[in-house]
């Protein structure tokens, strides 16, 4: 299940729905990402997330299908907010169900890694020093390489 929009979400409710719907799976792993409070020592005033409507949903749905196939998931969800968010606000929730814990951990990390640098979102951080687009990190590309080797 994919959802992209400005609205906040309730992780407890979303994960409960995934748990209820997960059939015979014994493991549920989730990742919740929130807006950080500081960036390189400076307080963050806001984080604005821009996206490419239409392409975002397609990219996330493709990642979800790939994770389902590759890790044998019995259920999954990806929720991602866009727009202007405050420090501490929820940005993204990824949840996956699988029969065993190893597959569930792998699938959740896989989705989170692809979300970081293969879904059309861009983050702009506002601090007292001004606003700047968050740069892509080399470590995020490195994280993806692990999945390509294992493909």
């Amino acid at each position, binding site marked *: 299940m994919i959802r992209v929009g400005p609205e906040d979400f309730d992780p407890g409710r979303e994960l409960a729905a995934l748990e209820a719907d997960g059939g015979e799976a014994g493991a549920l792993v989730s990742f919740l990402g929130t807006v950080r409070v500081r960036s390189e020592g400076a307080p963050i005033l806001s984080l604005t997330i821009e996206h490419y409507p239409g392409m975002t949903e*397609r990219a996330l749905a493709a990642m979800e299908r790939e994770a389902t196939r590759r890790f044998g998931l019995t259920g999954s969800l990806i929720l991602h907010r866009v727009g202007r968010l405050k420090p501490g606000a929820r940005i993204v929730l990824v949840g996956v169900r699988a029969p065993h814990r190893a597959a569930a951990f792998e699938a959740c990390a896989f989705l989170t890694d692809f*979300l970081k*640098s293969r879904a059309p979102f861009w983050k702009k951080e506002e601090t007292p020093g001004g606003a700047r687009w968050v740069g*892509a990190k080399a470590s995020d590309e490195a994280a993806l390489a692990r999945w390509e080797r294992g493909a």
Partner: protein
Amino acid sequence: MKILYFSSVREAIGLAEEEVEVPGHVRTAGDLARWLSGRSEGHARAFADLAHVRAAFDMALCEMDTPLGTAREAAFFPPMTGG
């Protein structure tokens, strides 16, 4: 052809989208970016270093050497930072 710009590319160009008539010699995403860079100083700045620009045709990520084919929409943007 419809061209979309996002994030710092959009800000450099000062447009979120525009409609353009693409000439026949433009064959790839990279050709398109180089051709678009002639349209204004903002375009030139946005496309000055294509190593830092990503492209999509019809909402699918592509490489700078991917042929235009039958694409009806192209988008240019910096590396993505989701999650």
